């Protein structure tokens, strides 16, 4: 096998060669004369219409959407878990819902490093709760911006994922989110869009849920 240094040299040689070939073709290109890229103008929707679209899209994708108030979150999570014969939930650290949930459920905080705790997360955690950054009506999408408190695997590995969505942070489309929130200026480690539970149609075009990620996505939509 080649050594690391040899491969670095090879990579930089390949880089020069590829770039030289490409540059030879477009060196004189005039970028000021590019044609105008027209975007499609979607009809404007009221907040109520957007909420409906958001909910319908998510429901069509097999997610469960529950309209609720901020105060009822803990109660609803406990109720939904007990319907599934569960009484434990994994949540992020520094969660404002910790105390309310602890009163009714066995709560575990994601206060560990994944590396040493993979078997625990994969085999013992049945449900998790996370918050979200914002959401998108046009596609029924929930935007998660994982961080130290709510790691990436919190919304991925447990079979049931509860996610709290604030109806006030609903945007019409992905493009609108970029215009308003300007992510381009400072991207986090990871952003993930979730639009339903994990699924696949890889066997004879038959939809099956719970391929590798959560089998169930329960959306707690704070709407009052």
């Amino acid at each position, binding site marked *: 096998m*080649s050594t690391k240094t040899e491969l670095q040299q090879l990579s930089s040689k390949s880089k020069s060669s590829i770039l030289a070939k490409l540059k030879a073709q477009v060196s004189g290109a005039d970028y000021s004369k590019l044609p105008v*890229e027209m975007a499609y103008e979607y009809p404007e929707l009221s907040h109520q219409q957007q909420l409906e679209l958001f909910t319908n899209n998510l429901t069509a994708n097999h997610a469960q959407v529950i309209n609720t108030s901020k105060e009822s979150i803990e109660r609803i999570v406990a109720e939904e878990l007990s319907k599934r014969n569960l009484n434990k939930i994994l949540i992020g650290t520094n969660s404002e819902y910790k105390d309310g949930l602890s009163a009714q459920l066995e709560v575990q905080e994601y206060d*560990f490093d994944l590396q040493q705790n993979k078997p625990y997360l994969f085999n013992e955690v049945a449900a998790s709760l996370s918050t979200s950054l914002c959401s998108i009506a046009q596609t029924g999408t929930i935007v998660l911006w994982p961080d130290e408190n709510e790691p990436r695997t919190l919304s*991925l590995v447990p079979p049931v994922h509860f996610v709290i969505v604030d109806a006030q942070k609903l945007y019409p489309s992905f493009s609108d989110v970029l215009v308003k929130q300007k992510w381009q200026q400072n*991207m986090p480690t990871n952003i993930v869009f*979730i639009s339903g539970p994990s699924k*696949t149609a890889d066997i*004879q075009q038959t939809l099956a849920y719970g391929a590798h990620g959560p089998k169930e996505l329960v959306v707690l939509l704070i709407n009052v």
Partner: protein
Amino acid sequence: MLNIHEQESKYAESARKFRKNVDRDLANQELRSNFRGAMDYLMDKRKTAFPEQDELETLRRQAQLIKQRCLLKLPHLLEELEQNLTKNGIHVHWAETPAQANEMIAQLIASKKGKTVVKGKSMVSEETALNDYLEQRDIECLESDMGEFIVQLAKEHPSHIIMPAIHQNKKQVADLFSGNINDFEHTTDVDALIQQGRKTLREKFCNADVGISGVNFAVAETGTLCLVENEGNGRMCTTVPDLHIAITGIEKVVEHMADIPPLLSLLTRSATGQIISTYFNMISSPRKKGEKDGPEEVHLVLLDNGRSQAFADDELRQTLQCIRCGTCMNHCPVYTRIGGHAYGTVYPGPIGKIVSPHMLGLEATSNLPTASSLCGACGEVCPVKIPIPKLLLRLRKESVKPESQQPVIMKGQGSGRTTLEASIWKAWSLVHKVPALYRLSMFMVTRFRFLIPNKLGGWTSVRTAPKPAARTLHERLRERK
């Protein structure tokens, strides 16, 4: 001195057998019915996903212009991408050939003493035949996309770029699982089959040292790798193992984050008729200090593999606009009948016919551009408006152009040229240029028409032999005067 063994791609060999493969697969009734069912389903799904023609056409035009702009700026965007990825802590490697890419990936895995790899869906890693390469080095590389997992168990290749196991039905999958997975209770229930896959693969995600993924879009301005998927295996591969290696073609870079929404919308709706995939995953750095999961190291391997050849010609460059949605195969009457394996290449169907000649050379692939009725469906549905039928004609021309004719645009130029065919066309053109010759030949054809044999090879296998008229049209018109 670096000793990277450059050998001819195994796909070149299988592409050469195209005609044989077609005969084999056309005769397979089960295969044909699997493809027919799947293509009807996918065409229907796409149709429902674009209810407004006006929206579809505006989006297609916008996406075409976005990709053309990004290609015009490609070398600069690649440099910007590398700069921003590096700033974010992601390492970038450049490979001109599949062999180089494989060697780089093997070296990265070895540096972590990795033994087990989980891979999310990546067609570029199929180009490099990465699984075979790693297997030879005693590294287990397990496909984790359900379709790819099935294909790997069956020791096959994907027959469709979006739905890799589309050639198999649930009964075949059940039999495959029975033969390969211990404790599997035979069932043709799709939910149960998927749950079996989930169980097997979750163990692997939990224990793998390395995750490998493809990339759907790489954003230059932010240094971000975007992955589109439904299953969650892509997120697993890019989040759970300590080392994440992404591999992609150099044409996948876009300039701005704002370029993504229209491309993403067209990609998922064209591919599977979904308004969006279940997950859209944007990765901009390895795990930062204080974060509790995510890989410690992230690498991106940028692969050329013939793309710069397509780039060098204004018309052929449009090949690189492709966002790999697969809708051209879903709508192709040839693909639907012969299936994905007959092509023998990584990318089957219309896009495969225009991209494979750049990767494998025209010598191995000169049959592919001819396997089209030029009905135009592929070009009509392409979300980035690649004029596929036009490019097929162009490739046909390149493959019969004299080898010596300058400039040489493609590897294998002229390899489809035969002396017989070339002489026939030369004679044809001469006859049509010289009036006396034309009249003489018409005289001969009409008077000696009884000499035309009844059997004319492939032509008469499903048709009667053509029979010229007794008099030419010119003659008959003259007689009327």
